[in-house]
């Protein structure tokens, strides 16, 4: 990849990372460890069978100084693990990594923020956590505050901040970190649109100043906008690398194969592990079709199976439909349901009669919670990428789907037929 001739800032050679899974791998309680020890001593225990997972295997690449590399791939492909190894959060199992220059990483917005501390105090604390010196933070303090637009609330504990203010302040601190190598994980998925744009601009500047950036994201639009080269990971291995546009195209076309209308999501990774999961999503089905292909005029119906772990007053499903490149199209909230007791399993059918989506590939995030877009939404459980489907150009009665046509430049939503009357 180092075609530009610039000296390498990141050299990754034969990198592998193994995780130990399951109860037998690690005794998480002293009691288990002691029992196992005694059983081994008495010769009762069979040799421990350790389940392992290679999150990264034989990954080698180079990033020249000043390049911006986008890392893409599905959930569980090893993107985050790669970032964590490069950030020194976790040690590699095999292989070697060499980083030339000061490294800064942003794996999460607001790491180290403490709700009881004021905005001012958190700027210093978070800056220190990110690796800035006190004098550096002090020198950039005003800039950070201006960028975050929170000057009036500097001496208020951040627990009183709105979520928007909180995110702006946290991002602002991180954005003023000026390392030579910047490792960024999807942090742009937060904040309002205007602020996101500002952040993208800031990252663009970083690249312009000769900084080396490694950017991990599901948002293909952002990846294409920000990065010059792409690295596609699949199952812990490199599936492709090269100019971003090409790699993204190949990655997107690989989705055509992963057809299926039923997904068991009980054990799927959760984007927000801290949620209560009082109601837990178990299974997502695309109802009424055998393949994940929807005719243009067909309803979008999902059958959602949930398990109740704790009684809740009401539950509403939320379904966010996004284009496969990560741009969200819209969200629906179901009417409230009630009456689940702990231990119950229930299956609901949520149907949108006229989704009016343009032809293309879409992915849904499914959530269960209370409240909706008008009231305050609180989630019990969220699963991203819970179902993928394709919307065809043609209508249901048009078997070949050849009659319909929709230009990408017309957008993502097919508006209903408008009213028209001749006025003159």
């Amino acid at each position, binding site marked *: 990849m180092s075609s530009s001739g610039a000296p390498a800032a990141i050299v990754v050679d034969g990198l592998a990372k193994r*995780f*130990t899974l399951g109860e037998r791998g*690690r*005794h*998480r*309680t*002293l*009691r288990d*460890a002691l029992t196992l020890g005694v059983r081994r001593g008495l010769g009762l225990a069979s040799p421990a069978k350790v389940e392992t997972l290679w999150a990264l295997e034989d990954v080698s690449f180079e990033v020249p100084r000043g390049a911006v590399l986008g890392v893409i791939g599905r959930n569980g492909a090893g993107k985050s693990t790669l970032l*964590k*190894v*490069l*950030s*020194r*959060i*976790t*040690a*590699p*199992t*095999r*292989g*070697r*990594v*060499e*980083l*030339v*220059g*000061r*490294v800064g*990483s942003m*794996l*999460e917005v607001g*790491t*180290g923020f*403490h709700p*009881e*501390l004021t905005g001012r*105090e958190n700027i*210093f*604390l978070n800056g*220190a*956590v*990110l*690796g800035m*010196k*006190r004098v550096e933070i002090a020198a950039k303090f005003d800039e950070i505050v201006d960028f975050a637009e929170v000057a009036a609330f500097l001496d208020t*504990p951040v627990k009183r901040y709105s979520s928007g203010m909180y995110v702006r302040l946290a991002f602002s601190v991180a954005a003023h970190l000026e390392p*030579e190598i910047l490792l960024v994980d999807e942090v742009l998925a937060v904040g309002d649109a205007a602020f996101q744009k500002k952040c993208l601009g800031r990252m663009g500047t970083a690249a312009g100043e000769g900084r080396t950036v490694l950017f991990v994201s599901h948002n293909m639009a952002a990846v294409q906008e920000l990065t010059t080269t792409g690295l596609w990971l699949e199952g812990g291995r490199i599936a492709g690398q090269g100019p971003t546009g090409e790699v993204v195209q190949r990655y997107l076309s690989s989705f055509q194969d992963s057809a299926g209308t039923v997904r068991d999501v009980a054990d799927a990774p959760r984007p927000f592990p801290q949620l209560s999961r009082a109601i837990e999503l178990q299974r997502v089905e695309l109802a009424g079709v055998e393949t994940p292909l929807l005719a243009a005029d067909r309803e979008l119906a999902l059958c959602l199976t949930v398990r109740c772990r704790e009684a809740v007053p009401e539950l509403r499903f939320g379904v966010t439909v996004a284009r496969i490149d990560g741009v969200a199209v819209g969200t629906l909230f179901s009417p409230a349901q009630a009456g689940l007791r702990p231990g119950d399993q229930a299956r609901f059918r949520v149907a949108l009669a006229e989704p009016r989506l343009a032809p293309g590939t879409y992915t849904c995030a499914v959530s269960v919670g209370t409240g909706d877009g008008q009231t305050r939404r609180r989630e019990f459980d969220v699963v991203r990428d819970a179902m993928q489907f394709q919307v065809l150009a043609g209508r249901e009665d048009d078997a070949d789907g050849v009659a319909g046509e929709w230009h990408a430049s017309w957008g993502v939503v097919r508006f209903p037929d408008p009213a028209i009357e001749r006025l003159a």
Partner: protein
Amino acid sequence: MVVSRTAPASQARTVLVPARSWAALDLGELWRHRELLLFLAWRDVKVRYKQTVLGGLWAVLQPALMMVVFTIIFGRYAGIDSEGAPYEVFSYAGLLPWVYFQGATTHGANSLVANARLITKTYFPRLYLPMASTMAAVLDYAIALLLLAVLMAVFGVVPDAELACLPLLLPLALLAAAGAGALLGALNVEYRDLRYVTPFLMQLWMFATPVIWPATGVPEGRRWLLGLNPMGGIVDAHRAAVLPGKSIDWSLLGLSAATSLLLLAVGLLYFRRVERSFADVI
């Protein structure tokens, strides 16, 4: 994780390779991040004092209440020998270093699990989490020391020249607490039920330390056994520095200082051995 860097900063070179099992302490790395240690300690203090209604008063209240209870039970009813001093001053002078050690160790033991997000999302020397806890507890000790002065004035206890040795003892207790905190903190990451064992362990440890009873209660020939407990000699010396009729048992203190260092070495070694996998198991 083995890391080597060469200055200057703009050409800093970081090499990451699989970890060896017993890696030496990387002092250079600790020094580079030294400001973070102070920030973490400052955060611990600030947050604790903001979250409790009583704030700084709590630092005094805890040992003071223990002193009152012990005076009633052990001083009055059990009639435990207090080496010629009022039992109030005797027990409070012993409680001070103990309460520091107990608080620092307990906070240190929980510090890693409590900061799991920091560990899984950023890099910094992990050792600073338990160390910040031991540093933050120093403030509580300093505040509680004020009440000792008040007690001594009230009970008319006039210290002798050995009082000058008092500032020497906290650093020793700090080393012991850093060792115990690092060891228990690292074990806590792996074995989550240790959290329930720690308070019980600290309670037993207190009774095995001359906090409510005098070290002179142990026959002279076997008194060195107290020195195997890092806090044994420290608590005894802390009391001797305050009470005029009692002099510091230097050999006992010396032995405890040695076991404190041993505890620190064991704690640091074990911590270094397991810290590379913290982010994977926490």
